[in-house]
Structures are given as structure tokens and as C-alpha cells.
């Protein structure tokens, strides 16, 4: 469903992503982890056609994101980490706009929009301007707009940050349900607990390089102690163990 081959992105002399090669299957929930500045958002931007890779290729459902961008974009949905929406549209107008952009028949999109608004507790505020929404509400309307066109592949950058526990749980449940229905989810997150609990496979990126990829079981096997949790594996792979030890020494 998502395939990248030697995907590389350089900004001047700095290599943000270094020969990233992954394959993600249909219906898979893929967690993409990494410390700040590791290259998670850059990867998502390349996979959604927001930025051009310096080298390598990426395909979504067989469509090359560069050569067949429009076909690839028609089946994907993006939820970025930065909230930049049309602030002078109402929530409902924005979701409708997105549905029309993806040419979803109005009857179907209206029904789906109402369901999603209901699920995410947005019905009462759907006719208010987006600029009056709180951060969490903006995030939820963005999530609604991403799902309204029923994408086959979803790219989510920190989807649960800023959400209240109830909404975060709803989002996770919806995503899990979508995966069960065959949708592929590519999610970058800092919340390791979510990644550990909901993702089928996890990729860990550090300084632009993919340092590990696999299911939780496979990740544990690559380490010496098999009872380790994701946090410990993550820290070991990204160099966070030394930091933790330094804190320990300082506290002593």
C-alpha cells in the first residue's frame, strides 16, 4: 500500500531523511516514532506530496507520488501537526469543502459528516467559525475533514495531541476500526503508550535514518532483554538511555 525506496531529502547540506525504505501493507496501522527533529514530519510531507524528495521514490497504492500525484492524493488523507485551517469558514463548511474537493457524492458525504461530528461532539459548534474553536476542537474538525472523503491511506502527524481523553479514545477507536476495514494508517507520534497499544508495526527513525522496524515482538527480539517495553527500546535506539543515566547521576 505504501512503499518507499531509498527516499532521501536534503535541505542544502543537511540530510533530513537518509535512504528510507519501508513497505506498509493494506489495513496496517503503522506507528512512526522518533525524537524531535528526527524527520517524521518530513517523511509524511514527502509521502503526501507536500515536498519533493531529493532522491528515491514513494508509491501509494501503486501510484508514484511524483509522477501520478493526483491519483495518489485522491486516495489519501493528511492530518498535519500544525493547525492551519480556513478560519473564516465554519466547521461544517470546511468539512463540506473537503468532501467536494475529493468529489464525494453529497448525500454520502453529508451522512458521513453528521456521523463524525456526532462521534466527536462537534454538532453544536459545527456552524460556528473555525477561528472561535479551541485547539482541541480545531484538531477534531480537521480529523472529521480528513475522514469525510473515506481515504484508503491516512497520514496522521500527532493526531491525539491536544485532545481531551474522551476524544483521544474516540480517535483511536475510529482509526482501529478503519484499519479493520482495510484502510492503511501511517501515524507519527510521541506518545509511546498509544503506539505500543494500537499499532500493528512500529518504525523508529533517528537523525533521518530508520533504525528499527517491526511488530512489538520483533522489536523486543532485537534487544537483549525481551521483557522491555517500547519506551526502553525507543530510548536505547535513539540514544536516550545516556540522558536518563545522566539525570540519575545528577539527582544522586
Amino acid at each position, binding site marked *: 500500500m505504501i512503499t518507499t525506496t531509498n527516499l532521501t531529502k536534503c535541505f542544502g547540506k543537511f540530510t533530513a531523511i537518509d535512504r528510507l525504505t519501508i513497505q506498509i501493507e493494506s489495513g496496517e496501522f503503522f506507528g512512526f516514532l522518533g525524537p524531535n527533529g528526527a524527520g517524521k514530519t518530513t517523511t509524511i510531507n514527502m509521502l503526501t506530496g507536500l515536498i519533493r524528495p531529493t532522491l528515491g521514490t514513494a508509491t501509494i497504492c501503486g501510484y508514484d507520488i511524483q509522477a501520478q*500525484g493526483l491519483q495518489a492524493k485522491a486516495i489519501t488523507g*493528511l492530518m498535519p501537526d500544525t493547525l492551519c485551517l480556513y478560519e*473564516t469558514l465554519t466547521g461544517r*463548511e470546511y468539512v463540506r469543502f473537503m468532501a467536494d474537493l475529493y*468529489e464525494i457524492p453529497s448525500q454520502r458525504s453529508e451522512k458521513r459528516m453528521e456521523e463524525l461530528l456526532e462521534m466527536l461532539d462537534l454538532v453544536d459548534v459545527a456552524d*460556528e467559525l473555525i477561528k472561535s474553536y479551541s485547539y482541541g476542537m480545531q484538531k477534531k474538525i480537521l480529523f472529521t475533514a480528513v475522514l469525510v472523503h473515506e481515504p484508503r491511506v491516512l497520514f496522521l502527524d500527532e493526531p491525539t495531541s491536544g485532545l481531551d481523553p474522551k476524544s483521544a479514545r474516540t480517535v483511536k477507536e475510529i482509526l482501529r476500526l478503519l484499519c479493520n476495514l482495510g484502510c492503511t494508517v501511517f501515524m507519527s507520534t510521541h506518545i509511546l503508550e498509544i503506539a505500543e497499544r494500537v499499532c500493528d508495526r512500529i518504525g523508529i527513525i533517528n537523525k533521518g535514518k530508520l533504525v528499527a522496524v517491526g511488530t512489538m515482538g520483533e522489536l523486543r527480539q532485537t534487544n537483549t532483554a525481551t521483557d522491555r517495553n517500547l519506551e526502553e527500546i525507543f530510548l536505547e535506539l535513539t540514544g536516550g538511555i545516556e540522558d536518563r543515566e545522566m539525570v540519575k547521576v545528577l539527582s544522586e
Partner: protein
Amino acid sequence: MRKLAILLRSSWYGWANGFRYTSDEKQKKIVEIIGFFVLIAALYWLGRAVFRAAEIQLSDAYGTTILNLINIFMTLGVCVLMKDAMEGALTQLYEAPDTTLLLASPLPPSTVFGFKLIQVIASNSLSMVIWLFPPWFALGQFFHLPWHFYLALVPACFCLLVIIVSEISILTMLIVRFFSSRPMIKFLKILGPTVGVAAGFLISVSFLIPDQAGRFALDWLKVPESDWLPHLWVAKLMMAWLPESNTYALRWSGQLVGVSAGVSVLSVLIASKIYYRSWEYARRVERKAGQKEKKQFGISVVGRGKIRSILAKDLLVFMRNRKQMTTIVILTLFVLVGMVLTISEIQNGGAGDRDDYISLYIGLGIQILGYGVIATLGLTWGAFKAEAKTWWILKSGPVSPELLFRSKILIATLCSVAYTNICFCLWLILFRISLVLWLPILTVATITTTTVIAFNTAMGALPWVAEIGESYRDSRKRPVSRIATILLTIAANAALLSPALGWGIVVLGEEPIKMPQQLGIAATMVVMIGVWRLFYMSGKRSLRKLLS
């Protein structure tokens, strides 16, 4: 005081770092400074022209003529400074992102206010130079005044600026504290652009008809008898340098310094009592306003579908932009005022023969075409810049450059053509233009507007105009190229409107239109359509780069 110094120091570091490390910022400042110099030179030129036209003699120097002339410029400058101060006070005191942080920190509200007041004064200093200095420079040159005249101008105008900013800040705080309501805040926000556009209009009119404008201003802006206006204190202080002057510099300078210090201290004292509460009220009004604003006019009004949804979205975003709507209202008022003045001129017999009538009609017609273009600049020149932050939505969606450009050009053309045609219909009715000419006039207006809109939209799609970066996090800024494109756009718009002007002279001058003229007009219009096609292709090409 120590805390205020810390705040000022960090603010200075922030400004200097932005200037030092960001090349965009540096370029932007350079372009701004060039722009300021151009404006100063223009106002200086206008000042000299007015002084020369008024034929001031040295013997008049102590009379009221100079004071009246200076009063015209100073009144305009003070109005613009008041507008800038009000916008600055509203933004800095209530909307700046750091205000919440500062008020939450262990700083007394008076310190935060003092810091903000200094920021507003500092940010308006350049405005002071632009709007207050040029007429004095012109006067200094006119009478060959010594160098210390120019030196004294700086503290005198600075004191005036301090008085204006402090008074406006007090007024803003009082309004927000005691009369804060959504309509009031809206009114204050609309007032700024209104004054700005009106000042621009007045200046442009006075450049076009300096003699009439000068006479009109001299008649209407006579120096009042009383001495309570601070800008008159500056005028009287500076006039002490004129030969054989009998004004007392010490009195006016003392008054300026004393009042500016007094008013600024008073503003800080008032702020210590009401600033924090007014900030709370402003936040509450903002929050309530957002919740109340339910909109029923939806995207589906123009039907569903890719292009129609982009059209409707652009239209809604445009219509809900307060500044753009204010501009349209002001421009419409200008058109109506122009029509009323023209009618009264004709009725009073001010316009002599047929040629005079025609030049008045055509002048107004060109004005309508120009306003039709200006009113939709947000949909043409600013169409893609307005999308810079939300560009990711279109870029990550299945939107082709052709579709996007088509939708942008379509909405701008529809709005502009609707505006110009409505105004032209009114024009045709009011001036009782022969019915035979209605269709040709409206066709030419439509084709001309469509071509100019295509050009402006194509310019708006250029990367340095759109300022859209590779991703939604960055944006390319090239202020020098941007300014060059603005100048090119103004020149090209004038050039594209000129066939309509020429055509208007031919048609209104001779009725019925002869065959060769008809052919000439038809050929011009065919060329205009060809030019439109050219702009359409070039815009699409630019957009392809932005979307790839």
C-alpha cells in the same frame, strides 16, 4: 524600572536577531525604508508645490498663510498617526501573543503597559518621519532655514507622537474597559483602514489636481483660534526659526515637553488601575463573539463539485474579511461622491463645452474600472498569498494547477465584473447616456476588467508574490522582487485600462460610431482577449511550480 529595562532589552534583542539572522527580514526592512523614502520625497514635493503655488512672500511669513498650509499637512499627518496609534494600541495591548504571558508573570500591569506604550511609540516613529517631516523640510528649503531648524524638528515631532500615542492608548483602554462590546471593537478595527484609505485617496487626488486640492484645503482647514491642539504647538515652535518671527520658542517647547511627559505618566497611572481589567474584558468579548457567530450561508449555495467548492470557499473567505469589505464600501462611496460632484458640476455649468462633459464622464468611468480592480485585489494579487498557511490543504488534495487557477480567476472575474457593471449601469442611468451605447460600453468594461484581473491573478501566482514555500512550515520571501512586481502591476494595469480610455473618448465624442472606429474597437478587444489568454497560460505555469 529594572523590569521594564529587561523587557525592552529582550525586545530589542528579538528585533535585532530577526534583522541579523533572517535575510528575509533584512530585505523586507530595506524595501520598507526605500518605500518610506519614496513617500517622504512625494510629500516633500507636494509641500514645495503647495508653498510655491500659494506664492508665499517673506512678508507673509508671520501671517496665517504658512500656518494654514502647514496645518493642512499636519492635520493629515496627525490623522494618520492617530490611526496607526489606535491600531498599534489595540494590537499591542490586547492581541499580541506575548501579552498573556506578560500579564501572567509577576509584573505589575503598569510595567506591561509602559513596555507596550514604548513599543507602540517606537513602531510609529517611522510613520512620524513620513507624515510630519516633509512639509517642514519643504518650508525649510523654501526659506533657506539653518540646520538647527531640522534638528529641532525631531524632538518637537517626537513629543507630539508621544502625546498622540499616550492619549489614544488611554482612550482605547477606557473604551475597552467601560464600553467593550463586539460592535465597538469591530468599529475601532474598521476605523483604522478607513482613515488609511481616505488619506491615500486624498493624497492621490491632491497629486492629480494640486491647485484645486490646495484651494479646497485652505478653505476648509483654517487654523483654529484656540491653542489647545498639540500639532499647532509644534507648528508655532518651528515657526520661531522663520525670519523676523515673533513667536516664543521656549513657551511652545516647554508646553510640548511638559504635556508629553504628563500625558504619558497619566496613561501609566490609568493603566495601573484599568489595564488588566480591560484586557480581561477584551478576551471575554473575543471569546463570546466567536461563539455567537453562527453562519448559515454555506458552501453548498453554489452547488457541489470540485471547482464550485473552491469558488464558494474563496467567496466566503473574501466576504468574511473585514478589511476587504471595508475597502469595497469606501471605494463605492468614492464612486458615489464622484458621481454626485460630477452631476453638480454639470448642473452648475462648471463644465463648459461638450469636451468638458466627456472628460468628466470618462474620468469617472476609468475610476470605476480602477476601483473594480482594486476591490478584488484580495482575490487576484493576494489570492495565493492568502492561501499560504492553508496551502497544504490544496497541495495534499487532488487539485490540479489548471483547476485551481481557473477557479481563482473565475471568482475574481465574477466579482470584479459584477462590481464594475453595477457601477457602470448607475453611471449610464445618471448621465443619461444613449441606449445605443449601453451594450458596447458594458462589453468593453467587461473585457477590460477580465483582462486586468487575469494579469493580476497571474502576478499573484508568482512564487515571490504568493510567498508559498515548499511546505506549510516555510514561506519564501523576496521583498525586492515583490515590490518590483507591485510596480510592474500598477504600470501594467494602467496600460491595460488605457484602451478603454481611448475607446471612451472616441465613442462618447462621436455618436453614432463610424465603421473604421467600430473596426478599431473590435480589433482592440480581440487583442485584449489574446492578452488575457497569455496571462491565463502564464499564471497556470507559475501555479504548476507552486503545486509540484
